[in-house]
Structures are given as C-alpha cells and as structure tokens.
C-alpha cells in the first residue's frame, strides 16, 4: 500500500515538474519579455528595467528556472506585477470560494446522478429509461456557461428569485448560500447526466454478476439489491472518473464564475490573463495543476481503500 502510494505521488510530482519547466520555458520562446508585455508599449526603458530586475529577468535562463523552483518549494509563487502582493496570498484568498462551488456542484450532481442512474436500471428498457438516456446525453453536451446565462436570465432577471451576481454578503450565510445556488446548478447540470450514464452502465454490468443472482435467490427486494448491494460495487469505477471530473468542474468554473461575476480562481486568472500579469497566471496554473494532481492521486488511494480486493493486492 505504502509503495503504491509513493509510486503514485512520485509520478504526479514528476508530471508537475515537467509542467512547470514547460511553462517557464514557454515564456522565453516568444518575442518580447514579460516585463514589457505587462507594462504595455508606452512604458519607459527605465521602468521596464526596474520591473525586469524585480521579476528576476536579468538573470540567465537556467538560473531563473532554478530560482523559480526554489521559491515554489518555499511556498513563494511570485509577486503580482501590479498590486505587488504575493500571488499565493491572492490565490488562497479566492480558492475556497471556487472549491466550495465545485464541491457543491459535484455534490448535487452526484446525488441526483446516482439516483437517476439507479432509476434507469430499476426501470430498464422502459420509457423512463429511454427518456433519462436522451436527457442525460443532452445535458452533458450543452456548455455550462450557456446554461449559466440562461439560468441567470430566467431565475435572476425575470423571476428575480436569486441574486444575479457576486458571492453574497460577507458573513451572511443565507445570502452566500443564495448566491451559490445558480452557479452550482449551472456547473453541476452536465454532470448529473454524465454520472447517471456512468452509474447506469456500471450497474447494468454489476446486475448480471452471479452475486446479484444470489441476492435474488434469497428473496431480497430489487430496490435493496440495487441500492445496498449493486451500488457499492458499481460506484468504485465511478470514483476515479469523479476525481478527473473534479478537474473538469474547476475548469468550467472559470466560465461560470465569469458569468456570475463571482470572485474565485476563474475571475482571478481571467483578469490576470487580460492584463498579461505573468506571475499571477503562472502561479494560478501551477497551483491548480498541483491541486488537480493531488485530487486524482487521492482518489486512486481511496479506491484502493474502498475495494477490499484491490486493498489486499496492494498490501501483499
């Protein structure tokens, strides 16, 4: 188990280093240095020189990469070109909001998706099954920011039930919760369909297993068989998809946050990209990649825990 964990984490770290190097190298591949790009065409040479020095751009490339890695290891992702605040501080300030949005979106999607997937299995090959099928393929393919805009028009502008923008009043839980509903709905809707589909396919395979026949031979209710016995087996492959999916959710969150002007990682990075604020962009990308790799690795380890067969293979 430990060896497996180390190998898994090691691979993630290797990928992270490759990514970081590639990203840093990319900056040098294009004409024009980050300092002049950030300052724009009207900056004076002196100003540029000051900024170049502060960003460490006057050093040789290899030294820069070395300094960058050294700083990252110490938790220093660089400094904002404009506000001069540490990038990590800015990220940590907004990240909880994005995380909350992602977790709530995936949470409701998982709950409803599992339910619909099971419903499709219980009523297999009926109208219910077919309708759920078409519905889930449809919601999977529609982009979440389009859903976000439509939801915003309908529920915030026309019906005026929920706030259109922002993340709610600071310290007011009810207002924050209300501000979370529409973004989480838009972000999770596609995943409802995807998870329903995944659970259904996985369940149908499990339902043909001999142990399900055993459960039937002992007179267990079909509902109990589906929810108490089959789901436990079927959910295991879904978990690894869920981890990768969480990365996807955080990606879509960029657009959804932008639609609802909701402070978060998405609004932070899009603003930085527009201003070509290199340190913020690179720091955020690095942070999100690291976070994403961490989630995927954790999910792998969790699956090993959930499935006793895998657990034992790893232990021996």
């Amino acid at each position, binding site marked *: 188990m430990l060896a497996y964990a180390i190998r898994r984490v090691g691979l993630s770290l290797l990928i992270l280093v490759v990514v970081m190097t590639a990203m840093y190298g990319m900056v040098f591949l294009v004409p024009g240095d980050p300092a002049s790009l950030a300052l724009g065409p009207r900056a004076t040479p002196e100003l540029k020189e000051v900024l170049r020095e502060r960003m460490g751009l006057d050093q040789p490339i290899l030294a820069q990469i070395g300094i960058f890695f050294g700083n990252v290891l110490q938790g220093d992702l660089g400094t904002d070109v404009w506000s001069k605040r540490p990038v990590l501080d800015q990220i940590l300030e907004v990240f909880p909001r994005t995380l909350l949005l992602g977790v709530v979106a995936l949470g409701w999607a998982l709950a409803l998706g599992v339910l619909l997937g099971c419903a499709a299995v219980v009523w297999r090959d009926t109208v219910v099954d077919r309708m759920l099928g078409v519905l889930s393929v449809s919601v999977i393919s529609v982009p979440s920011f389009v859903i976000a805009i439509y939801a915003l028009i309908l529920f915030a502008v026309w019906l005026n039930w929920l706030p259109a923008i922002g993340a709610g009043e600071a310290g007011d839980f009810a207002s924050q919760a209300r501000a979370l509903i529409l973004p989480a709905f838009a972000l999770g809707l596609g995943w409802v369909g995807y998870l329903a589909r995944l659970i259904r396919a996985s369940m149908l395979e499990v339902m043909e297993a001999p*142990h399900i026949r055993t459960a039937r031979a002992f007179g267990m209710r079909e509902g109990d068989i589906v929810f108490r016995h089959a789901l436990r087996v079927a959910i295991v492959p879904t978990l690894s998809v869920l981890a990768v999916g969480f990365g996807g959710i955080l990606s879509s969150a960029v657009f959804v946050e932008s639609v609802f002007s909701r402070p978060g990682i998405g609004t932070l990075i899009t603003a930085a990209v527009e201003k070509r604020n290199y340190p913020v962009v690179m720091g955020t990308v690095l942070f999100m990649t690291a976070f994403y790799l961490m989630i995927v690795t954790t999910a792998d380890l969790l699956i090993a825990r959930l499935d*006793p067969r895998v657990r034992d293979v790893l232990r021996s």
Partner: protein
Amino acid sequence: MTAVLEVQNLSVAYRMQGGALQAVRDVSLSVARGEVLGIMGESGCGKSTLAAAMINLLPAGARVGQGAVRLNGTDILRLPPAAQRALRGKSVAMVFQDPMTAFNPVLTIGRQLADFVGAHDTGLAQPERLAAMLTRVGIPDARSCLGRYPHELSGGMRQRVAIAAALLMQPDVLIADEPTTALDVTMEAQIIHLFRDLRTSFDGAIVIVTHHLGVIAELCDRVAVMYAGQVVEEGAVDAIFHDPQHPYTRALLACDPAVVDPSSGRLPTIGGRLPDLSAPPRGCAFEPRCRVAAVSCREPVPRQRPSAGRSVLCHRGAE
C-alpha cells in the same frame, strides 16, 4: 410421503436468433421432505436451467413454456413477483455452483447474510444466530468470519458459507446447483461430508444437481437422469446404479472414471453429439448415439414404469 416440491410437465426455452432452444422438455419430478433427489446429466442437458426454474430465477432470454412448479401445493410460477420473492430464501433456498463469484466482493460475509435473512425477518438477522449457523456448517471462529470479505475465504469455506446462508431460514427445499464442481478434490470431499451430515439434521427436501456420479452415489436417495432436456430415467439410486435400463444411463455409468477398469488404459466416451435442441427430434433424442437403436426409436417414446418409483423413457429399455 407427500411431495414438498413438485415439477409438473415443465418446459423451458431460450430465445435465440431464428427460433427457440428447448432446454427443458416436459419434465415431471417430485421430492418429499427428508428426501435427497439427484439430477444427473452431462453439460448442456438442461439440468441447471431446471434448477433455476425451480425458484423461477431463469437467466435472461429463458421462458417457461408450460408446466408448473408446486411448492407445498402452490404453483410458484403463477404467483405475483412479490409473493415469489417472499418464498425465495425462506421456503426454498439455493446454493450456486461457483462460490468464488456467488458473494458480493465489497460487502462482508456478515452483512450479506444479514441482508439475506433481513429480506424476510429483520429480527432474525442477529450476529449470534448467523455465527451459530456458520459453526453448524463447520466454520471455525465463526464470529470473525462474519467480519471478513468473501475473497479472504477459501473456495471450500465460501461454499460452506453459501450452504449456511441457505439453511438460515430453515427452508422446506434446498436446491444445490453443482455445489462441488468448482472445488478441488479435498474441498469436494468436505462439502460432500457436510451434505451427508445435513441429511440427518435438516428436515427439508434437498435437490442436488450434478454431473458427478460420486456425489449422487454418496448423497442421494433418488436420481433423475437428464438427456437433451428430458428426464430419460428416474428411480432409487441403488436401482439405477445396479440396473440401469436406459442406454444413456448405462453409457454414463460406464464413463465414470471411478468404475472404469484402469488396465484398459483409456476412458470410454459416448460417441456423437447432443441433438440440436432448437429442433428436437420427434423420436428418442438419444437414438443417433445409441448402440441398441432400432427403427422404432424414431417414433415418439412412451414413458414406461417397470416398477414403483421407476420410470424409463425408452422404446427398448423395458424389454
């Protein structure tokens, strides 16, 4: 003796492309309380389909054409699904062939047994009771076994657990579908031993489906020999083994590795293949492979009853 389980003129067919495969054809059998009935035949003869039909849990694509399966006089095939479910596990229980896959891999043994019992009576699903039953089938340290996952037990242990599960509700009928086939020789001997103990302590009827002649000889009171979906011969085990009347039964007994003369140096086989069951022959199904076949064997076969409790499906068997 009144029959607990009675199969009457039962036919089961599998839907296939361009027709139906008639796996069970007009089978009638019965088994009484305290009696052990063996169903014997080579693979593909329909014996497992028959066993599944006895609790109406046929695989997808299989349909009962006609006939009845009476449990204590009630035809379970005609009961609504909920009533059928109430009988399964409680009045009739089943032990499956492969103990490796018969249990849910991600739930503990105890949880599964509790769920099986709990489907009928939640009050009975107590660990002490479950452990007592595991002890009864010869599982050492039954309490810790309840907390284990199926893959942590050996095949033989799992089959013991399966038998314990089947006995939990003290059913009227216990059906075991090839209970020893997936096990190695030592395990097989242990499971046979366990069933022999059950004969004295269990007061319901037992149906054992197997292709293993040793299992039949060791455990059964009566045996039904199946060929191509039909019961071709039925009778007391002693009578069948000492005086087989159907040519197929004779050939089957001659093929048993345990009785073959080792000096002959080779195992006898039955030549030819099973008939095509999507279009079963009008006459005797064994006729193409039979050594004593005559022209009359292509005509429909009458069931002959040479003595009480004995029946043979052969034109020439009673001669």
